[in-house]
């Protein structure tokens, strides 16, 4: 009898340890958003959603709309927000090139540069600048006075001085990127954490581009990552825990600060089909935002 009770307790404990406290709360922006490129959260916890066509939409934490503005830019691929609430919108510039595909000629877009504009919270443009050393911008963050940009074309994470735009460091070695996905987030102690999906790892780098921490491998356990390449996105929560996002099948997990003891958030729908990016963001209250980027809405998870 004791054995049965112990076994039952063990089962309950195991189940509890694997179930996150988070629950899926609501969908945000359905019907008002297009192809979502990126999410960001302002210092006042306003959710910012960047469409690929240049539109920036703002939502309060309760999911209600708080306005939007048109950046006037095209192919907008990355979004960052500074500590003082300025919004940085990045456009990947491209050229059309004709290539032979079998017996046919088809046109493809080749990334050739990055331009960004800075807006205040009302959408008034402050400045526009080109980052000549970059070919594309897939993700961008402002961390401790540095502008960090993920250049997928060069498969390189590039650190810049925010004021001058001058490059200060870069990370290329060890990045195993695939499927056109290259995401990272701001992490504690002035670091960034890259979703190194081809390596099935989350890797943290300091502002000098040095690796300071990593976790993850492919496998069947909850602490592991699955699929052909994962995670596609990562975000830090206010308590230092780490959110990871896996696509196809969609798995949203929260690890402790050491990248261990993962707990899965149950009830999150299949956000994307196939090998696609799922932008994510967190706010100061620990709310989690996940973009179903082709469906045109954001899923909010909260405790």
């Amino acid at each position, binding site marked *: 009898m004791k054995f049965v009770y112990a076994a039952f307790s063990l089962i309950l404990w195991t189940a509890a340890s694997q179930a996150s406290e988070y629950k899926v709360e609501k969908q945000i922006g359905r019907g008002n958003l297009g192809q979502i490129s990126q999410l960001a959260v302002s210092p006042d916890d306003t959710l910012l959603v960047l469409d690929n066509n240049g539109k920036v939409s703002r939502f309060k934490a309760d999911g209600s709309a708080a306005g939007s503005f048109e950046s006037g830019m095209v192919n907008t691929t990355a979004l960052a927000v500074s500590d003082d609430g300025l919004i940085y919108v990045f456009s990947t510039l491209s050229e059309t090139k004709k290539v032979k595909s079998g017996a046919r000629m088809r046109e493809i877009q080749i990334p050739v540069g990055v331009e960004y504009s800075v807006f205040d919270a009302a959408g008034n443009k402050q400045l526009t600048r080109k980052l000549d050393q970059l070919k594309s911008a897939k993700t961008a963050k402002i961390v401790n006075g540095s502008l960090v940009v993920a250049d997928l074309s060069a498969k390189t994470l590039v650190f810049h001085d925010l004021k001058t735009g001058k490059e200060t460091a870069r990370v290329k070695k060890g990045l195993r990127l*695939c*499927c056109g996905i290259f995401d990272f987030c701001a992490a504690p102690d002035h670091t960034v954490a890259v979703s190194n999906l*081809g390596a099935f790892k989350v890797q943290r780098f300091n502002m000098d581009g040095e690796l300071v921490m990593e976790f993850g*491998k492919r496998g069947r356990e909850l602490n592991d990552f699955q699929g052909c390449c994962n995670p596609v996105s990562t975000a830090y929560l206010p308590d230092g825990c780490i959110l990871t996002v896996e696509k*196809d099948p969609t798995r949203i997990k929260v690890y402790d600060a050491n990248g261990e003891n993962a707990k899965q958030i149950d009830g999150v729908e299949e956000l994307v089909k196939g*090998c696609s990016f799922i932008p994510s963001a967190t706010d100061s209250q620990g709310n989690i935002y996940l973009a179903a980027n082709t469906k045109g809405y954001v899923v909010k998870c909260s405790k």
Partner: protein
Amino acid sequence: MFKISFSLAAGLILLSGCAHHRAEPRTLKIAVNEIYCTETACACVHDVASRSYDPFLNQLAETGIQLEFTYFIEPYQLEEALLSGQYDGVLSKPWLALRLQESAGADFERVADLLDPGNNGWLSGIVIVPADSAIQSLEELTGKRVVIGEAESYEKHQAALRLFETRKIKPTGIETRASCGENIGELLDGHADAAVISDYALSADCAVDFANPEDFRTLEHTEKIPLTSLMINRNKVSGRQVQQLKKSLLTLSGNPADEALLSKGFIAPVPWNPPELKETP
């Protein structure tokens, strides 16, 4: 006499009814995880993994064979599906299913093998080193660090271990990783001197996005095993239906097969009897 005959006839009718109900489902449910299928391959290799089964399944249906495919991009989910007992068969690397058949209560028969876009039906592991490595032969791996696949990947685990044993190669350490990309990463990062990966990994796996074939040199191939097989659970499907399926698959294959299959399609299964099946089914 009449009573005996009547009872016998009734019994036979009952038995045949039971057998029909147990062994001949109208539509065979097939779990699919296949390297070149668009539904199960990563988007980064969709230029080569563009296989679609729908037209071929429609052709099969015209011969009286109904197959219902359920696609699993994640092999671990395919395994769970097989263990659930909800499927009549599986289309995948054969080892994925054969290793599970005892725990799944299944008896998988390889009905046909599927050819890849190059009309190749074989799979092997390749032992690779960086192109500029000083290591020139397999024998030089004794005393070196080698990373291989995990136990569910026969070509880069069991076959690799057997290759080393046969050739009396004794690496200092053999570590395992669950993906070819990770094995290649260990090599690129200098954590291993050699890696064993699947022979398609540099052309039809996520590794194509971050590893150039020219950056590696192949020292050796592991033994050849079947690449992809359609396997039917004989505990659920009758021999008659299996034979009918096999006949239809082979009739619709060859030259030309439906172009969406990207190859000549299915062939009769090549013999393969992995010794591990007797030890660890």
